[in-house]
């Protein structure tokens, strides 16, 4: 079956359908990771977006029950060069196409994804429509134009959990699967705010020795502090941080009360809560190969990233110092609060998908909690 991707600026790509049929809309972004499409599909940060994988053969390893980053698929459309129906991997239990179909996600394949990527790079991320039903290209472009911009959208509160819950799963190991920490004595009590949190962040926290309670995005600071946490964690998530005023207010109340660690959207929210500004990037950073320098050690770590907004560190002068820097575009990759035990990073130390170079940050969080506890 034919499928079409139309962008708001009028560019159209004609391909073939795979996964679910129908119509989907969202901001079109590209991801340059060569592995880990299942994690991408289940990453809540892609809420409201349609992702094109720059690697061309997708579906090779099928879908397995383990490699999920949330309990469902969040992106609205999936764009690949050549979908591989026949998968091969000892953990796989179903094909990617079936998975998308089951979850109602529209996919398109057979388009020049490199041309699309170059277009997004040059013109910036923009809205688009994938359709297997609308035969009128003009009407599709119109629909794409009518979509609201990602800037100004609070999507995180739409993907957060309903109520607090306890997390006990640790990191994955070959042959053992995910660690089960149920009933284990974990020394650091952490309250993790869920703005669309990836499971692997929780697994990293647990494996680092944290007793994790996940709470909804708008969970009041007072109640969180009442749980007497050793630390607060602010998660990744989709959308623009700026309109999330309630959340930002809430975070302000947490500052100085307990050590805080933020990742991605959590990092941006911290920036805003500490009085800084954020801005939208042209096409963002989405991939598994981005070099980041830890300014404390001057060592470079290869990181996984997935963000369209960035913190303006100049707006935080005197409050925060730059701690990590993206060596490709020199954007802010991490910051440390001068007055309080707070730090955050823009990239994803939990990886999944991506390299594990930055996992030490969870250790740093634990050290910070330990120090704060002693103090």
């Amino acid at each position, binding site marked *: 079956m034919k499928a079409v991707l139309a962008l708001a600026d009028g560019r159209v*790509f004609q391909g073939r359908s795979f996964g679910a049929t129908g119509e989907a809309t969202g901001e079109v972004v*590209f991801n*340059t*990771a*060569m*592995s*880990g499409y*299942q*994690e991408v599909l289940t990453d809540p940060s892609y809420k409201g977006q349609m992702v094109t994988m*720059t*690697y*061309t*053969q997708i579906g*090779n*390893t099928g879908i*397995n029950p*383990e*490699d999920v980053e949330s309990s469902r698929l969040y992106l609205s459309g999936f764009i690949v*060069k*050549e979908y*591989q129906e*026949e*998968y*091969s*991997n*000892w*953990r796989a239990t179903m094909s990617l196409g079936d998975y998308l179909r089951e979850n109602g996600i529209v996919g398109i394949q057979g*388009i*020049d*994804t*490199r*041309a699309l*990527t*170059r277009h997004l*790079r040059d013109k910036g991320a923009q809205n688009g429509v994938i359709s297997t039903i609308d035969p009128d290209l003009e009407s599709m472009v119109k629909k794409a134009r009518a979509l609201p911009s990602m800037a100004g959208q609070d999507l995180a509160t739409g993907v957060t959990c309903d109520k607090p819950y306890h997390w006990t799963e640790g990191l*994955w190991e*070959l*042959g053992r699967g995910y660690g089960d920490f149920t009933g284990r004595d974990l020394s650091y009590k952490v309250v993790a705010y869920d703005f669309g949190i990836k499971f692997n962040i929780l697994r990293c926290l647990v494996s680092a020795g944290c007793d994790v309670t996940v709470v909804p995005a708008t969970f009041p600071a007072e109640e969180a502090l009442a749980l007497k946490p050793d630390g607060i964690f602010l998660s990744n998530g989709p959308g623009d941080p700026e309109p999330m005023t309630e959340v930002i207010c809430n975070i302000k109340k947490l500052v100085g009360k307990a050590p805080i660690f933020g990742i991605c959207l959590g990092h941006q929210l911290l920036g805003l809560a500490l009085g800084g500004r954020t801005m939208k990037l042209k096409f963002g950073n989405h*991939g*598994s*190969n*981005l*070099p980041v*320098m830890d300014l404390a050690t*001057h*060592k*470079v770590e*290869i990181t996984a990233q997935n963000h369209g907004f960035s913190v303006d560190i100049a707006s935080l002068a005197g409050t925060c110092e730059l701690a990590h820097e993206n*060596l*490709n575009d020199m954007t802010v990759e991490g910051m440390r609060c001068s007055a309080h035990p707070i730090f955050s990073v823009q990239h994803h130390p939990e*990886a*999944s*998908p*991506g*390299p*594990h170079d930055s996992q030490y940050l969870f250790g740093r969080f634990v050290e910070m909690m330990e120090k704060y506890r002693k103090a």
Partner: protein
Amino acid sequence: MPKRTDIKKILIIGAGPIVIGQACEFDYSGTQACKALKEEGYEVVLLNSNPATIMTDPDFADRTYVEPVTPEFLEKIIEKERPDALLPTLGGQTALNTAVAVAENGVLEKYGVELIGAKLPAIKMAEDRTLFKEAMERIGLEVPRSGFAHNHAEAMEIVKVVGFPTIIRPSFTLGGTGGGIAYNMEEYERMAIAGIDASPTDEILVEESVIGWKEYELEVMRDTKDNVVIICSIENFDPMGVHTGDSITVAPAQTLTDKEYQILRDASLKIIREIGVDTGGSNIQFGINPRDGRLAVIEMNPRVSRSSALASKATGFPIAKIAAKLAVGYSLDEIRNDITRETPACFEPTIDYVVTKVPRFTFEKFPAADATLTTQMKSVGEVMAIGRTFKESLQKAIRSLEIGSCGFESRLFDITEETRRALTQKEQTLLQEKLRTANWERLWYLGDALRIGMKVDELYAVTGIDPWFLNNMRHIIEMEDELKSARHVFEKRLPELVEILRDAKQYGFSDRFIARLWQTDEESLRQVRLSLGVRPVFKRVDTCAAEFVAHTPYLYSTYEEECEADATDRKKIMILGGGPNRIGQGIEFDYCCVHGVFALAGDGYETIMVNCNPETVSTDYDTSDRLYFEPLTYEDVLNIVDVEKPHGVIVQFGGQTPLKLAVALEKAGVPIIGTSPDSIDMAEDRERFQVMLHKLHLLQPANGTARSFEEAEKIAERIGYPVVVRPSYVLGGRAMEIVYEVEDLRRYMHTAVQASPEHPILVDKFLDAAIEIDVDALCDGREVIIGGIMEHIEEAGIHSGDSACSLPPYSISAETADEIRRQTGLMALELGVRGLMNVQFAVKDGLIYILEVNPRASRTVPFVSKATGRPLAKLAALIMAGKTLAELGISSEIRPSHTAVKESVFPFVKFPGVDTILGPEMKSTGEVMGIDADFARAFAKAQLGAGVRLPLSGKVFISVRDSDKKHIVTAAKKLYDNGFELLATRGTAAHLAEKGIPVTVVNKVTEGRPHIVDAIKNNEVCMVFNTTQGAQAVADSFSIRRNTLMNNVAYFTTTAGAKAAVDGILAMLRKDLDVKPLQEYL
């Protein structure tokens, strides 16, 4: 950390001659390293014996030593040059081993030289299998169950623990030489002993077989700040059990989830840190059990490797260049990524295409060799292809191989007909056999298995090839079916033709293959395709999957929407490269192509390179202005011409590959510059050539063309035996033989070749004991300048690519040389050569015969250029672009006062059961040069460089055929007079004794024991002279030559070679050999 200022002078070791397992990838890496270090202001001293390399061009280093790559010569250079540092990680295993030797024997310490890149302990830990295994255990990684053996008894103990099948890996050998897989005790015993023999440390690793596991490689880089990045992951199509150099490999890894890939990545980081490779690239191989993902570390190379070259070309990340910079103290974040310019080299390339490498084999040259692929590498070259999908890149790779394949031709069917019929019992057996064992043809048999409907699961069970690859192959075969059933669509030009063609092209189908399916010709199909607008676009290799703007036009074709070629309107010249390395066409041609690029770029042209060999300097993205990594076929080249519209295309540098395309390209309107395709044809067409020689009053050996045995017999009788017979239009002496009598001729005509009216056999008078001369010359159409005259050491009858040669000639008279010059000039002008020409002459009884003329760059161009200091290929390129010799300031031949000797190196050690005797069929893979003040010393250096251990004392064994007996006396006498003892077989001994030379008689193998082979095996013999003639004598003496080879005893199978060796030995006895850089000769 910025670059080190405490070191000023760096010595780089190259890889020496091209051998199986070590090819031009180390010229690529060494050249990058030289360039990078010179750029940084270091004084670079280079040691490499291989004259056909770009790195040994005098401009690439400050002091270039074309001397044997041995610890002895390295020490001499260190003593003379006093470098601050030695960089051993860019010249393959040869460089590493040589560096280890001087590190261990105290030379480095004595002269205060620091080993940079990798320190001795790291090299030892990576290379010594016990230390490596212990290191892996320390970091919690598994290695296959294994143990070491140094002798028969130990080998028998270990196999009890390891079980069968067992992998035998000799320590410290190249490309797994001497290794293999044993399935039973008998095989094991034989291979274990051979492996211990092959290892310089008399050690083998006996290892648990992980045959059938998935095989992966990761290319890792580390800097002084301990930053580590992965440049590329590679997945092998062939499962474990086939040497990775012989496997089809694909980048990036295809069948790993992110979690599994990260396990490999984490392991790689741990390994490079634990082994302690300070800086630079390393290659780590893993096996993965496809049932549960269990991981085993197979090995690590603490240096830039063949896979690094592949990874560099596959990603656009220049591993060798960066490795050189890291070695002098830079960190990855301080180095820019050349392609994006804005981002640092400290990142992991991501690609948006699939790269497939397919090895090139030459088993046809060694019919006696076992063609099964094992853990010992047997391929001589490789091609790489880039496509947006695996299907596309695989099919592009296949047609890049130049083995007459343009896709998945059937081995069992006529593919234009029904291919789903039941196979005969015989076909069935053949198919099963070809699927079960790894062999180079398996890919095509897999195609047939799919054609008859075998299921992927079945094929997986038989071959162990991952179902993902097999399924993609199945898609290709299904597309073939679709195409076949759409023949009417083509014939009637139905509207759906566009879509069908586009789909087929996206699957990588070539015009030629589709044309075959539709029973039309390639050109007609091409015209239809173009008229429908089905044209390829060109995409860039940019390290970043289009995330950043790419500033380097490194391109590949695919059938999609957007073209990124952005051709310029500059004055431009396109050079067609040489394709995969093979015997007969290797690095020498790449050297010429690269020189062509340099010269034309220097003259203001935009240069465009087209090639598909990932090992080469020509496929480095910064060699030419624009690089097209594409198959060298009519279709693919025309596609590029259509986009680039070059002002000239050069076909005479890349060897036979582009030359074969010349006529067709010219017909298609491509502006071929240089010697016209018609002149090339005149030189190659027997009859036209004869007419020309006649006109010029030049001599040719008597000859004729036979279309049957009867005709051949008549010709042979007319011109007299011996005769040289060969099929018309072959290269590298394929199927060429010297025939001494009618029975041999009958056998040849009936078994070796199938003569027919379309495929006639050429019969030439063989000039026995003639001297062969090679000449390279430049001609601009008006004037001819001799580049160099080379006298072969071996007599005519040995393929020119296999014989040693001397520049200047060492025995012919000045008059003869002048006459050769005159004749060369006549022919060059008559042929209208514009550029290079090579002529082979034979001199016998005062007469000069012309054997062959090639109006193109020859294999000897780099050697001549190095020997004389005149860059022939550069000058030729400028002539082709319109300059005259006078304009280039070239008015006379350079006649050097020193002597340079070229010697060939052979792959015999890799092919058990193959005879080492030389003949008209070329067998060598590479060459070395010895350069010194006189012939004897230059010859000795060439021998040492080729790995021949010329003895200075000991017992020499001599056994020569009757006609050689009188020629060997002087050499034998010289040896005796210089303290050597002589052993000889009865006939030879009697002849020598008659001439008053004391000699001990030793039994031939057929004469009872103890015999000569016993003596060789007992290391009692230091050198062997053995010439034979006639099938029986050759068979009888086979074991002598083979054992000589396996025991690394110097041997010569021609009297001319023996005589030169004796002179070389005498020269060495008189005075130890000195070293002198090329720059001081010129």
